[in-house]
């Protein structure tokens, strides 16, 4: 049976070698195939991840860029806010100034209005007074038949009418002034009166101006009797 054993061993070896060669080869191919497919996978994954890493880097750059920009904008915003605060404060100042001016203007306007009212009523009163004075002058001139006028050289002219009943409008005139000594002085008399010098003396003595004028009129009247 040694021969059997050797034959069996030979058959076993042959069988083992055959098995090995069949399965070994298959295994090797399989493993090789597996190895290759792993390699492929790894390669694909590597590429994928490499791409992702690149994208990640880009994003980081972008984020950095955006961060910078945000920083810049923040700076600008804060500058603008400062500027705005300044402008607001200037505006407030101006507003206050204007308010001050407007208030002053309002006050002045009210003051002016009051003044104008006062002036207007004063003017009215003055006008009424002057009217009254003029009316008074007219009444005196007409009723007394005496017109008093201021003429050149600060003289006064007295013009009598209604003296001559036959010619009421005929004027009888004398002119009066104050001389350097401060005395009354008759500078002219038309028609002339003899007594005028006497009257001048009397009025300087007594200062009775009313009698002075009344007497002159009486003298003028007396002329019409002749």
């Amino acid at each position, binding site marked *: 049976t040694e021969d059997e054993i050797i034959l069996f061993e030979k058959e076993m070896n042959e069988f083992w070698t055959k098995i090995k060669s069949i399965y070994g080869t298959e295994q090797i191919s399989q493993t090789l195939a597996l190895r290759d497919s792993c390699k492929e996978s790894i390669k694909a994954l590597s590429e994928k991840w490499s791409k992702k890493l690149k994208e990640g880097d880009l994003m980081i750059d972008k984020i950095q860029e955006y961060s910078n920009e945000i920083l810049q904008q923040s700076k600008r915003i804060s500058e603008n806010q400062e500027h705005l605060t300044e402008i607001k404060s200037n505006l407030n100042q*101006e*507003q206050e*100034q*204007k*308010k001050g*001016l*407007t*208030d*002053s*203007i*309002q006050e*002045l*306007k009210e*003051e*002016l209005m009051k*003044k*104008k009212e*006062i*002036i207007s009523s*004063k*003017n009215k009163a*003055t006008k009424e*007074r*002057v009217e*009254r*004075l*003029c*009316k*008074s*002058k007219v*009444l*005196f001139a*007409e*009723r*007394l*038949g*005496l017109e*008093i006028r*201021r003429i050149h050289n600060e003289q*006064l002219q007295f013009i009598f*009418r*209604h*003296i*001559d*009943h036959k010619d*009421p409008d005929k004027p009888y005139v004398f002119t009066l002034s104050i001389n350097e000594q401060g005395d009354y002085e008759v500078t002219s008399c038309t028609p002339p009166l003899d007594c005028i010098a006497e009257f001048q003396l*009397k009025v300087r*003595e*007594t200062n*009775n*101006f*009313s*009698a002075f*004028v*009344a*007497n002159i*009129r*009486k003298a003028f*009247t007396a002329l019409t009797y002749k």
Partner: protein
Amino acid sequence: DRSQPTRLSLFTHPTALRQELEELREESRRLEEDMEREDEAVPSAAYVTQLYYKISRIDWDYEAEPAQIKGIHYGPDIAQPIAIDSSQHSRCFISDYLWSLVPTTW
């Protein structure tokens, strides 16, 4: 509400406001000057009227009708009323009468 600026004043430049203020002040000054000048107009008109009174001592009743000569003569002793219907007498008569009230004694 004077504390709030009006919409108009918000847009008015301070310079314009200052100008307005200055103009108002100027106007005020001018008014003052005018007021002073006006005050001088009356004395001149009053002078002659006062002179008439000084001479005649007559005060007219200005409310009377124009044809009625009414007033008072203030003599040295007594005050005498005057009442003449001017339509009834000549101008000369009226003047002579009125002057007769004025004393000629020195």
